[in-house]
């Protein structure tokens, strides 16, 4: 029963010294890992057949938008995209543990069930990110209606 957990915490302690402090800044991806620099992965995801398509929100814009319109549009697009990911469970957790950031110490509830699972942490991060974006969106549109599953 504890096999997986042991392996996890082993992995944690191995990596901790290298990546300590990474958690504070989750936008910093990929994290700086000198030993992995050489086999650096491109920041591009997927290929030209694997694209994000949000009905009603084209990703091709005219070039005559005002700065505010452009910013607001990009904000809403990100809000919609994060909402889609939360809704469909497409959390972007790399299937290969090697590509993941090291886990924090596990936290368990009174029944011994782990609370801070990777899925929980990822959802939390996406929700926080969306919250920040929605707050910024209100600056451009005070009547902005956030997604149905927000708050």
């Amino acid at each position, binding site marked *: 029963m504890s096999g997986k957990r042991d392996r996890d915490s082993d992995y944690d302690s191995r990596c901790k010294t290298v990546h300590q402090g990474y958690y504070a800044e989750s936008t910093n991806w990929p994290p700086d890992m000198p030993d992995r620099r050489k086999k650096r992965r491109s920041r591009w*995801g997927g290929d030209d057949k694997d694209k*994000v398509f949000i009905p009603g929100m084209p*990703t091709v814009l005219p070039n005559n*938008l005002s700065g505010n319109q452009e910013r607001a549009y990009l904000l809403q*697009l990100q809000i919609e995209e994060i909402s889609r990911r939360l*809704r469909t469970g497409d959390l972007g957790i790399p299937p290969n543990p090697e590509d993941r950031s090291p886990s924090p110490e596990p936290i368990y509830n009174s029944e011994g069930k782990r609370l801070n699972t990777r899925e929980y942490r990822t959802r939390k991060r996406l929700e926080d990110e969306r919250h920040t974006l929605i707050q910024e969106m209100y600056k451009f549109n005070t009547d902005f*209606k956030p997604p149905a599953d927000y708050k």
Partner: protein
Amino acid sequence: MQLGDKKLIVQRASVGAKNSQMNAPVQVQVPGLNLTGGAGPPTEVLCLMNMVIPEELRDEEEYEDILEDIKEECNKYGVVKSVEIPRPIEGVEVPGCGKVFVEFNSVIDCQKAQQNLTGRKFNNRVVVTSYFDPDKYHRREF
């Protein structure tokens, strides 16, 4: 169709039909924004948005990495003449910071790049594109 004392309703099954209201087009909530005009006339300068945030461009090594990733990918679609990624300067509002500009050899190459890159993911963000006025680009009016 009548089945006993009940009516049997036949519907075409499709994946995600129950969530169909989720797939309704998004209402764009940007005051005064009209996107019905499309992209406008193509140029040889492509503007890529939503790819980088200013904080990522501060670090020299990360900046070089990003530049390389973008050049490498854009070169697949045509000859890249130049790339501009405005970087943040402490205490100054840098125009175009957060955007990436790629100048191609021809309008055709630029169109090809737009078709292929728009909607892709970069650093887990959705890439948004538009054509950019070459004169403004050369005057660095980002």
